[in-house]
């Protein structure tokens, strides 16, 4: 019996004017656009310099900033206002360094001088990091100058701690390597979460579901027959995305594909169970679509996809506990970047497994053959 039902589902999907194409178009569009749109990359912080002093020390500070490796010197402007208006406001520069007139004089005569660092915090990460880096560059310059001026005695007596920082994984600091695996989670959610709404509510609206309800097809078999095609679609989407990201960004998972597909298997069941649940309780497509979009937006924002879960306030972190996307985004990222195994990720797998059982259980219970 199941065989005939599954056969029907596949035929219906393949004959849909848009679904089969969507399975390929959507990964391409999302993978090409999103990693570029959502580029929070912090390499190459753009710096604009306003040097009002034109002294050797100010030139040195500018040169040191430009050669520090953190910054890309995009422009020099004659005034602070111009720097803000022409560079920062237009998004060309992230940080502005202003060296006031009399900088060198103050430094030599009074032993201290000020510089002004202004950071654009629209991109909060870039702004915060940029200003901190710039501050440490000025500290380096100070030390150098002091050393030259014969303050070696001072410098050598000050205990110094050499802090060596090292990033484990993703040493190129490629933000896309972080974004793309989670994007695959998004893709699977969109396609596998939307499909059930399309297929079940569609049957409700055309009335074919009524016919099925008077046949001996059990709820379990009906739901299972709906699920299996989504599974297949999920695998196809994932595989397409896997190769696309290799092609576009040169990314490939660090751990075995087995771990990746195991996680995907559980996640598809979770997400399509969620879709089934929504469509069971919707009588028309508009309703199903609306409920789906409502939850998708919340889940997406709360998944750690855009901003880290650990950065959220306590209450919001509790909300994410009930978000299956959070676990799968984590699995995808760990598998891609760190090469984690199922044993490493058992908590995420367990959470997803629980979601799968509960959501699909509810979907079967809430699918009513009789009223």
């Amino acid at each position: 019996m199941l065989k005939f039902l599954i056969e029907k589902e596949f035929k219906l999907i393949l004959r849909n004017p848009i679904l089969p194409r969507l399975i390929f178009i959507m990964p391409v569009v999302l993978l090409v656009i999103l990693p570029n749109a959502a580029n929070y990359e912090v390499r190459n912080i753009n710096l604009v310099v306003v040097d009002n002093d034109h002294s050797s020390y100010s030139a040195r500070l500018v040169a040191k900033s430009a050669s520090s490796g953190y910054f890309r010197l995009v422009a020099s402007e004659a005034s602070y206002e111009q720097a803000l208006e022409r560079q920062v406001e237009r998004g060309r520069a992230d940080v502005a360094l202003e060296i006031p007139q009399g900088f060198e004089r103050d430094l030599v005569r009074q032993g201290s001088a000020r510089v002004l660092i202004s950071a654009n915090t629209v991109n909060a990460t870039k702004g915060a990091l940029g200003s901190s880096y710039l501050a440490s560059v000025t500290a380096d310059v100070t030390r150098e100058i002091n050393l030259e001026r014969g303050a070696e005695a001072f410098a050598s007596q000050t205990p110094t701690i050499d802090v060596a920082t090292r990033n484990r994984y993703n040493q190129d600091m490629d933000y896309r390597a972080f974004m793309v695996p989670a994007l695959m989670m998004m893709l699977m959610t969109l396609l596998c979460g939307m499909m059930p709404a399309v297929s079940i509510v569609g049957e409700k609206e055309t009335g074919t579901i009524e016919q099925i309800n008077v046949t001996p097809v059990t709820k379990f078999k009906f739901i299972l027959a709906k699920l299996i095609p989504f599974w297949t679609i999920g695998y196809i989407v994932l595989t397409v995305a896997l190769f696309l990201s290799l092609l576009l960004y040169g990314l490939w998972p660090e751990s075995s594909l087995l771990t990746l597909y195991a996680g995907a298997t559980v996640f598809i069941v979770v997400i399509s169970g969620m879709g089934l649940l929504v469509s069971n309780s919707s009588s028309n497509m508009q309703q199903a679509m609306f409920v789906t979009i409502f939850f998708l937006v919340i889940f997406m924002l709360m998944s750690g996809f855009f901003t880290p879960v650990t950065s959220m306030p306590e209450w919001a972190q509790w909300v994410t506990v009930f978000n299956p996307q959070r676990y799968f985004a984590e699995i995808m990222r760990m598998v891609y970047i760190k090469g984690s195994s199922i044993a490493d990720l058992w908590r995420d797998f367990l959470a997803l497994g629980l979601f799968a059982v509960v959501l699909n259980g509810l979907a079967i219970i809430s699918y009513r053959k009789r009223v």
Partner: protein
Amino acid sequence: MHRTSQFAAFVRKEIYHIFRDRRTVMIMLVMPIVQIILFGFAISNEVRNVRLVVLDPSRDATTTQIVESFRANSYFTLMGSINTPDQIEPLFRRGEVDLALVFGPNFHDDLTREHRAQVQLIADGADPNMASMITYYASNIIQGALMPSAQQPSVTPSPMIIVPEIKLLYNPQMKSAYNFVPGIMGFILTLICAMMTAVSIVREKERGTMEVLLVSPMRPIFMIVAKMAPYMLVSAANLVTIILLSVYLLGVPVTGHLWLMGVTSLLFISASLALGLLISTLVRTQVVAMILSGMALMMPVAMLSGMMFPVESMPLILQWLSAIIPARWYIASIRKVMIEGLGIEYVLTEIAITTGMVAALIGISLSKFKNRLA
């Protein structure tokens, strides 16, 4: 007169039809509230709850002092100590730790005898931004921990200091609201006006009820307007909610003219409705209408409009691409009027472009619509 009352009856029927579906109406009204709360209070990039492990073979006064200052810092959570460097890797792989603090074996001796000691910070670099911020914060803490002992009697000649004065331009909280409040407006209006209209008109086509309506004495254009009326009503309610929330909850004031916001919103609502109408004339089934509006409207609005990511930091080609999305112009004008308080002369470009879009969309969809009927 007769025409008007007939039209009013139609509008009433449509409004009644939509409001009977309580759940959809509820979601339509609650959605902007939830989004404002999440964007305003849950989503952030700040460094918090950094989970730290320590490898400290030296266990001397200085290392203890440094570890203590991490313990006292609210950004860091000390997860425990480890004994060998090999233990770090599995912790990272299980995602249990964000940062490892590794002291050299003779830390204290090195520091007192050679005035120089080594410490290593190993960060989980999966999220490169977080990693940079975390290591930066951590190295500040390490340096800061020794400050008191570094205050030794000053030695001549006195050293020079450059004091960096750091100014964060734009209040970050305010600045992100500057992006997301207009973004949410654009998103919600697109969703309700374009997507819902498209799907609801196609539903009537799919069920065949459209033909029944079209043979009635009502002119098709009135029928369409009547169908759109309830969505306009809901959109207006949403706009009011969003503005109230942003003023009273987020503290983002409306600095510009409300009437100007009203005009641009009305213009954008017309554009969205026309888009919805156009989609409905192009497709036959609800499924296709849904997917098409999702792909062609929702996704670009969410990704490229500046709601999630600042448009300025996108590659140029994506900035150009966003130019064909009506929501982008609407969001830009709301940003200027509502947040920056600029007058009409600053949003003329946006208004002109949106008007052009409305005219083109209505023109195309009406001609398509007539062709379908002929």
